[in-house]
């Protein structure tokens, strides 16, 4: 190394302690500055709150999954044109239900919410309400407004005496049947199986009944229908507990298992989601399909071998029991703390109003909620499923309206899928599901989970 210059010239500098303290102070202040630095010009832009003059239009933002966002694009434009002072902006979110929920949750947890309205699926409502993220709506939508809806469509929107969501659709699970293979749809589960086996024996069709048996939320929807159809229930609202080990529940699970064992449904059903089952049915492989209303449109649009030969009916139950389809509705909720609640409510009123619902029914096949729409003969003509959907809305089934639903659904789907893939009998499966559900409730709610009604301990 080359010779260094002498160090003596630096003796002028102050001594150690002073340097250390100034250094630490500098570090501390730098850190404090960084921490307290609000969204500065560099780290944010565009969304900074600029002073809004009274004449500036108010922007109301609503987060929706992409397909629905596209479907309401025209009505949104209409709303914007006819309401000066309010601009409704639709944020297109991901298609997948879970993904869009995660997106919303991430923002809500951090307290920085870039939207005023959220399109909420019925299965998340309890969780979001318990987290205290929504504003109750009964102030603007009183009982007289709700009375104009079909009774079934009113379900799944209220909790603890408050209205938390205005429903946009009234979809339920439906039973699809082949009109070319039978004269009328089955009236109960036994008839369904009998007809299937007969058709299979005669070689008219490969499989009897296609449904969603994959380990995901779709299987929970199927379970809700089957449990109800056998007189069992998943959730007891008064005790806030699950009742999965009742004899009726075991019978329900056993029926599903038997479908695979007896060959009425293919083994592959254990990996089917909605689209897989639909694809197979649309190719003419089966006599019956359990799916949502959108499937009808897909079959008719697809132009496959069964086009024009498909009928739809309400979901069936066991002989002597009333069947019921799972409610799978979307609705709009108002985010608590939105700066423009009045304008946002106006947007809700429009988007869930009859004009938009009529268009959704005609173009996408979604079931409306307003009774007047169901009475409309023109709509009855243009939306062929309307009568069936109305009939289905007489006995819709709710998934357990508890904030713990996601976990309960996950473990039931896991257990039942295990049963379908041969890992256990119906009795042990439901017993395990019940035991694990109780553990989850206890773990989630503390000592309150053992006795109370599963409502949040802190009243918001």
């Amino acid at each position, binding site marked *: 190394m080359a010779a*260094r210059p*002498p*160090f*003596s010239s*630096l*003796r002028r*500098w*102050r*001594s*150690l302690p002073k*340097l*250390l303290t100034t*250094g630490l102070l500098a*570090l501390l202040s*730098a*850190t404090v500055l*960084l*921490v307290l*630095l*609000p*969204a*500065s010009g*560099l*780290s*944010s*832009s*565009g*969304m900074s709150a600029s002073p809004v003059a009274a004449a500036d239009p108010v922007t109301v933002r609503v987060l929706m999954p*992409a*397909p629905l966002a596209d479907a309401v694009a025209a009505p949104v434009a209409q709303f914007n044109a006819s309401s000066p002072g309010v601009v409704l902006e639709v944020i297109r*979110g*991901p*298609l*997948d239900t879970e*993904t869009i929920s995660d*997106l919303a949750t*991430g*923002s809500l*947890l*951090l*307290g*920085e919410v*870039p939207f005023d309205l959220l399109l909420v699926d019925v299965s998340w409502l309890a969780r979001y309400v318990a987290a205290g993220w929504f504003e109750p709506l009964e102030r603007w939508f009183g009982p007289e407004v709700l009375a104009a809806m079909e009774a079934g469509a009113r379900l799944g929107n209220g909790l603890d005496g408050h209205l938390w969501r205005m429903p946009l659709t009234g979809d339920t699970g439906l039973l699809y049947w082949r009109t070319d293979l039978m004269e009328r749809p089955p009236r109960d589960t036994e008839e369904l199986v009998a007809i299937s086996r007969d058709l299979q024996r005669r070689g008219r069709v490969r499989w009897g009944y296609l449904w969603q048996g994959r380990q995901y939320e779709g299987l929970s929807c199927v379970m809700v229908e089957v449990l109800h159809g056998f007189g069992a229930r998943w959730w007891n609202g008064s005790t806030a507990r699950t009742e999965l080990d009742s004899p009726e529940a075991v019978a329900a699970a056993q029926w599903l298992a038997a479908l695979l064992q007896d060959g009425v449904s293919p083994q592959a059903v254990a990996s089917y989601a909605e689209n897989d089952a639909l694809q197979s049915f649309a190719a003419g492989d089966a006599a019956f399909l359990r799916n949502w209303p959108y499937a009808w449109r897909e079959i008719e649009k697809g132009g496959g071998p069964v086009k024009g030969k498909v009928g739809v009916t309400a979901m069936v139950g066991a002989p002597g029991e009333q069947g019921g389809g799972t409610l799978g509705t979307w609705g709009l909720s108002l985010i608590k703390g939105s700066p423009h609640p009045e304008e946002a409510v106006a947007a809700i009123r429009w988007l869930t109003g009859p004009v938009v619902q009529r268009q959704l029914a005609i173009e996408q096949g979604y079931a409306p909620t307003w009774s007047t729409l169901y009475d409309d003969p023109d709509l009855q003509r243009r939306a062929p499923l309307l009568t069936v959907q109305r009939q289905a809305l007489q006995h819709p089934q709710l998934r357990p309206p508890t904030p713990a639903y996601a976990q309960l659904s996950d473990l039931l789907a896991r257990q039942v899928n295990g049963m379908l893939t041969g890992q256990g009998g119906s009795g042990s499966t439901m017993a395990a599901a019940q035991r694990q559900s109780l553990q989850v409730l206890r773990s989630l709610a503390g000592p309150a989970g053992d006795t109370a009604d599963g409502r949040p301990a802190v009243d918001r």
Partner: protein
Amino acid sequence: MRLLVLLWSLGPLLWQLRTSLLRPEALLAPLLEGNPWTLANYRLVLSGDPPFWRYLGNSTLVALATTVLTLLLAVPCAYGLQQQRGLLRWGVGLGLVAAAMVPTVLLFLALLEIARRFDLANDLFALSLPYAGLSLPLAVLLLRAAFGDLPAELEDAARLEGLGLGQRLRHVLLPLMGPALASTGILVFLASWNEYAIALTWISRNDLLTLPIAIARIGGGSVFTIPYGAFAAATVMGSLPLLLLVLLAQRPIVSGLTRGAVKG
């Protein structure tokens, strides 16, 4: 042999490049006519809202802030550690090694709690705080090794001359640490750019997303149409900055990792 290795390393990357330059129809089936190549995917990605280069900018900002903060904290710490003897030195060293091995994602819940409590969310500068903390173990270990490499006589001579600590650091030691500082800095920069879990939970605003999160969102938002051409374009653009960095700075990176390995 070398060709195989190159194919393995670069194959997927080159394929992404190819995909990004193809028209959507050409992706699904080989085109019989017309030019399959296009820049439309890039235009799509760049004209998004917010435009793609914004994510690159966000990541760079956080990475720079993290690197500066980390070095500011790590240099004195490494020096101090180097001066320690016995149990404290060994203990802290072991602790740092253990900390360096912890997968970042396991810390996200506590850090989310901190973000909510101190209102640090959606702030790119604040994000550099946990990032610096996560990079500190590696940085301190590398810099301590570098300090240890310096001949002791140099500092002794400076001390004899009457220079205080600050002066010794500034005028004697740090200039010699240049390469070590550079490689440590680059490694911290790379790590910060790569981080996912903390940014995922700390940043929810669309225009503040860092690159990995933005890419994940783009990929997760797929609807029935599969714009893989656009995905590929995003992938290529997301890769470019770091690829360039590595190609230009491969010597310091390698020497940094090497030193870490030898001393570790």
